[in-house]
């Protein structure tokens, strides 16, 4: 048996629906159709009345989920693409994100964002928005990189009493496979050493974990052992694991698919620079996407986001410093 990242997301939702009466799924085309990416395939039939198609109203989809969560439900909202969450951002940041702090009543919603770039998708179907959500208080922002994490973290997202923005990567949907669903997992907030190493630490998350691992494998043929830290959630961000890794390697390269200004890379470097300055043997480095909208054409798209080639080049350079 083999299961994809996308199937893991479907299975997690199936299990959440099965085990917890409070769960319902709310989103455009998630019902009989099973969602634009089929992440809810078959669920409407298995759980009648609990997997509901919505109008094209991202603000109201999240607002509705917030109201339901306040009243004790555990809604999962699917955005058709992460990019469209820009029109739900106010409800996510200002309503869900502030609710517990203001009222002491928790607001356990999960907002699923099919994120990240794929070929030919262009500026409005490719975005990685974790930085917007992580910047504001009151939200947990998950960025699973593996089939196992897609499954277990989504289950955990639903079980947490706080609002979770769940950034699942579209590129991994079909590309990534595992043998089976996991039976245990790290808790939210713990990063994972995706590959152990000693010469350089790559801190990354989501689809870029796999690029980083490919680079580590490539460079290991030249005798360099790169450690790859998969953040798993960018908020909370596991500073401890990152620092421990940098303590081992002395070198830090941050890799992320989102835009360069601010964001996870900047945050990780800021944490290491402020809290682990003496651990660094060389200047830390980062690779982001470029500071333009995400291009439609595959030629441009490949160059816009970091990839194994650009990461490897930067890693080699950093190893020489």
């Amino acid at each position, binding site marked *: 048996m083999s299961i994809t990242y996308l199937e893991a997301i479907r299975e997690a939702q199936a299990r959440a629906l099965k085990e917890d009466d409070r769960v319902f799924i709310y989103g455009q085309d998630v019902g009989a159709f099973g969602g634009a990416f089929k992440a809810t395939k078959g669920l409407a039939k298995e759980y009648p009345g609990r997997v509901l198609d919505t109008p094209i109203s991202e*603000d109201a989809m999240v607002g509705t989920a917030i109201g339901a969560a306040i009243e004790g439900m555990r809604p999962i909202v699917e955005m058709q693409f992460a990019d469209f969450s820009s029109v739900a951002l106010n409800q996510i940041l200002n309503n869900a994100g502030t609710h517990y702090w203001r009222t002491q009543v928790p607001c356990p919603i999960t907002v699923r964002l099919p994120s990240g770039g794929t070929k030919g998708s262009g500026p409005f179907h490719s975005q990685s928005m974790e930085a917007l959500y992580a910047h504001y208080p009151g939200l947990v922002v998950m960025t699973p990189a593996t089939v196992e994490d897609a499954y277990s973290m989504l289950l955990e997202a639903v079980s947490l009493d706080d609002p979770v923005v769940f950034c699942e990567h579209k590129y991994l949907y079909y590309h990534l496979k595992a043998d089976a669903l996991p039976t245990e997992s790290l808790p939210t907030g713990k990063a994972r050493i995706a590959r152990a190493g000693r010469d350089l630490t790559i801190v990354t998350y989501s689809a870029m974990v796999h690029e980083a691992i490919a680079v580590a494998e490539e460079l290991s043929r030249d005798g360099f052992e790169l450690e790859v830290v998969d953040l798993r959630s960018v908020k909370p961000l596991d500073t401890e694991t990152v620092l421990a890794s940098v303590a081992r390697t002395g070198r830090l390269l941050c890799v992320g698919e989102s835009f360069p200004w601010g964001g996870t890379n900047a945050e990780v470097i800021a944490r290491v620079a402020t809290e682990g300055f003496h651990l660094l043997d060389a200047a830390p480095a980062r690779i982001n996407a470029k500071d333009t909208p995400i291009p439609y054409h595959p030629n441009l798209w490949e160059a816009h986001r970091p990839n194994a080639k650009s990461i490897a080049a930067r890693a080699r350079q950093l190893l020489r410093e």
Partner: protein
Amino acid sequence: MCHSPEVKIICASSALTTKLRFMLRTAERGANKVETKRAPHERYLEAFRWMLRARTFEDKLASLYRGGLISGGVYLGRGQEAVSVACGLFLQKGDILAPLIRDQGARMVFGEPLLDVARTYLGSKHGPMRGRDGNIHRGRPAEGCMAMISHLGAMVSVTVGALMAKRFKGERDFVGLTTIGEGGMSAGAWHEGMNIAAVEQVPLVVVATNNHYAYSTPNEREFACHDLADRAQGYGFEGCSVDGTDLAACLDVIGSAVKRARAGRPPQLVVASTLRLAGHGEHDDASYVTPEIRKESFAQDSLKRAEAFLLESNLIDPATLETWRDEAAAEVEDAVATAQKEPAPEAETEDWCALSMRHLVDQPA
């Protein structure tokens, strides 16, 4: 959760003369429709007394503000008490109220303790918002009263969600009521909330008050339709308009809308017409309100109008009215005095946790 103040009936039932019957016609119609167990004059008196309390409290807030005793803004519902009290009066425990800026009346009737108001405005540590949020941004969601965010329109869909949750949980006989100003009706969030309410067919009542201004902006720059109530049919709501200065009409129309929603009719939109008889906030002298508009019939003070009616029709005597006033003032003074004695929140003991799951808090150095 409709905590009614003890209503002292001044006129015996027999005193409901034909003349009074005629004068109460509208209120009665309303009351019949909402299946009240009380006679219409009782309902009217009850509502009036709530209006008096709301006004009394808000006058006090204004004076505290002028005295420099309140941090931040003070936003009053002066002139809108009839609408607002009617919004609270037909709700019961298990219902949802999502109030907005000018809903002192509805909040109180729905069960908000006076002390919540005082504590929130005065920043007491013991208030429902514990100094984290202030003024109108208060609520007790666990008791069905939502805590609004400022962004206008956002609370409609939240109310829809709360009602869906009740349906999921198998509760029965509930409704939700949320309010909006005519200005907020231009917000995209409001539209999405209205549409999704109709799609989900939740028992929702949206009471919009066109008080003819959004801050300083007059209706001409807010919308261009003939009648805001016409928006109802574009969503599949049932809609109607009401004179927001006429308490009996408000009780009738809003009461009926609540009743229809509770009975499973489509969502309800009521558009009330009033004038905001205060500044946008107490910092604002509302000098942009033209003298002409102050002469319009929607510019009447709903409280004064109700009072005049009650006195004129001998449903209440001046002495009782004085007593009610005094009682309201005493209650308000009491709440304010209590809140004023209470400690303010302190940074040192504040836990600075935006998450309920403390172990997930990530406060970097």
